[in-house]
């Protein structure tokens, strides 16, 4: 706890200055204490302004124009792609496919890789803590191909049970798809190790990075996963832009997912050839404004530095978990050992999560309550639903203190204290 307090009291970057960039944090008389960053973050002025600027002076349909504006738009779009490639250390920008969100990225792999490579007898190995976006697509593909979906379970400390994982991995396993950070427990499986293990049986490794990438420096070459999905809106960029990273050799042999403008080469009446990477996977007019916003958001977080962000956010998470445990009135679903991030799931004993969230809302504290798109996990924990407080670069110790006070107020309102 001493380290945690030390970090929170002397943040590695100027958190108050960062807060200034977020108009959202200042709206109204009693601004919201926003602790739902796992769902979506707020956007700094720099991102919103860059997007508006783009629309005001560089806007045109990218990729196809023969006038200078279209070139400007294409340039903005491709610079964003390069920026993402550098951000996650992809080998080339051909490995960066822009999607709508992480869900679409995972569906793309499920459709374009899954359908082509799975057959009866094969297995797809996922974990108990996957977000629906990384489990339901695999249910679908397994149902259609006859492959079997297998779950690796958790240990008692809310971490992935690596023994169980190892025991479920076999020559039958063709695809291993797992989250880099649980959106509920915030436990952080060892992406590198899991990827290696997947490769050792000849399976591909797909990492759902939606919750990992906003909080950690990611190097896909070091991690070794074959695919990585992420969502811009969870890392200070606008809605409507996500990324699928894929190794070039694999992407090159995959069928397209969506068909239409931009992703073709030659179109005959009854067949077509497709554009080279990454365009083969980007059908129709792309969200250039979103890509430009993501570019600005990456610039923004990297200017702070991920070493600092990770350290600070981890301290927020730890502080919150410790404080909640201290209350003695909550069940806290958060690892006490091993890598874990900046989200804390819990339940207030005797109070339904929805009531917790509504009553906290009255105190201007925004958290999330529900199954967090992880029904399999909640069944595994033997609960219906849970509350989750999740943190971003702008949250503070004071906000967590207010949240903890709020929990006491919840109990009071529900008549659980006298």
């Amino acid at each position, binding site marked *: 706890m001493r380290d945690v307090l030390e970090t929170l009291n002397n943040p590695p970057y100027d958190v108050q200055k960062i807060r200034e960039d977020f108009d959202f944090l200042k709206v109204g008389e009693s601004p919201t204490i926003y602790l739902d960053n796992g769902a979506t973050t707020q956007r700094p002025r720099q991102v919103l302004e860059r997007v508006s600027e783009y629309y005001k002076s560089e806007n045109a349909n990218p990729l196809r124009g023969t006038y200078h504006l279209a070139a400007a738009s294409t340039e903005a779009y491709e610079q964003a792609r390069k920026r993402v490639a550098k951000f996650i250390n992809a080998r080339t920008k051909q490995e960066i496919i822009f999607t709508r969100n992480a869900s679409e990225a995972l569906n793309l792999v499920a459709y374009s890789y899954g359908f082509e490579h799975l057959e009866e007898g094969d297995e797809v190995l996922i974990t108990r803590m996957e977000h629906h976006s990384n489990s339901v697509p695999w249910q679908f593909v397994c149902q259609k191909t006859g492959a079997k979906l297998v779950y690796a379970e958790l240990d008692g400390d809310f971490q992935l049970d690596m023994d169980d994982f190892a025991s479920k991995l076999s020559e039958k396993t063709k695809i291993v798809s797992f989250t880099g950070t649980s959106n509920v427990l915030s436990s952080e499986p060892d992406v590198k190790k899991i990827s290696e293990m997947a490769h050792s049986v000849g399976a591909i490794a797909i990492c759902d990075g939606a919750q990992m990438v906003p909080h950690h420096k990611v190097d896909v070459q070091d991690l070794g996963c074959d695919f990585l999905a992420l969502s811009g809106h969870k890392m200070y960029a606008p809605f409507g832009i996500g990324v699928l990273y894929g190794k070039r050799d694999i992407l090159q042999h995959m069928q397209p997912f969506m068909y239409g403008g931009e992703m073709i080469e030659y179109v005959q009446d009854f067949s077509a050839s497709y554009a080279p990477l990454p365009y083969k996977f980007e059908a129709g007019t792309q969200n250039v404004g979103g890509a430009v916003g993501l570019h600005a958001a990456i610039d923004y977080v990297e200017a702070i530095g991920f070493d600092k962000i990770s350290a600070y956010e981890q301290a927020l998470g730890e502080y919150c978990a410790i404080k909640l445990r201290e209350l003695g009135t909550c069940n806290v679903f958060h690892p006490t050992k091993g890598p874990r991030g900046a989200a804390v799931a819990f339940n207030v004993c005797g*109070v*339904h*999560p*929805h*009531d917790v969230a*509504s*009553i906290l809302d*009255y105190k201007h504290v925004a958290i999330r*309550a*529900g*199954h967090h798109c992880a029904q399999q996990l909640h069944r595994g924990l033997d609960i*219906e*639903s849970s509350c989750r407080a999740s943190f971003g670069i702008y949250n503070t110790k004071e906000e967590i203190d207010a949240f903890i006070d709020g929990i006491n107020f919840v109990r009071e*309102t*529900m*008549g659980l204290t006298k």
Partner: protein
Amino acid sequence: MDLKQIYSSIIMEHSNNSEHKHELEHATHNERGHNPSCGDDIQLHLNIDGDIIKEAAFTGHGCAISQASTSLLCELIEGKTIEEARLACQKFIGMITGDEDDMDELEDILGDAVALQNISVMPQRVKCAVLAWHTLSDMLEK
């Protein structure tokens, strides 16, 4: 909004400790109502004799608001005719969605259940409040 008013004693009482929360041995009608997005999941059990709802009970789980609302519903409709219960559903849903605001009439028809009126200021909880009433509606349609 006054939160205390919403989480009033009536709701606390009904949600924590409802007389009506049990199975019904001689149920003539059973219906499930559920709210996938928040996990509220209830079963209404009625014993209907001719035109009269003789007994009403419920099982299942959910937040305080959906539990209280369901309990208040059971309390209200016991002894009422099907037509009266139908009207109550309509008025209650209207009250929550803000379409009905004649308080005198609402009190007449809904009794203690008017305590839930303030939910209409919490749009994200409206679903919890109306779940039981929609379930009863569906049930009486059949």
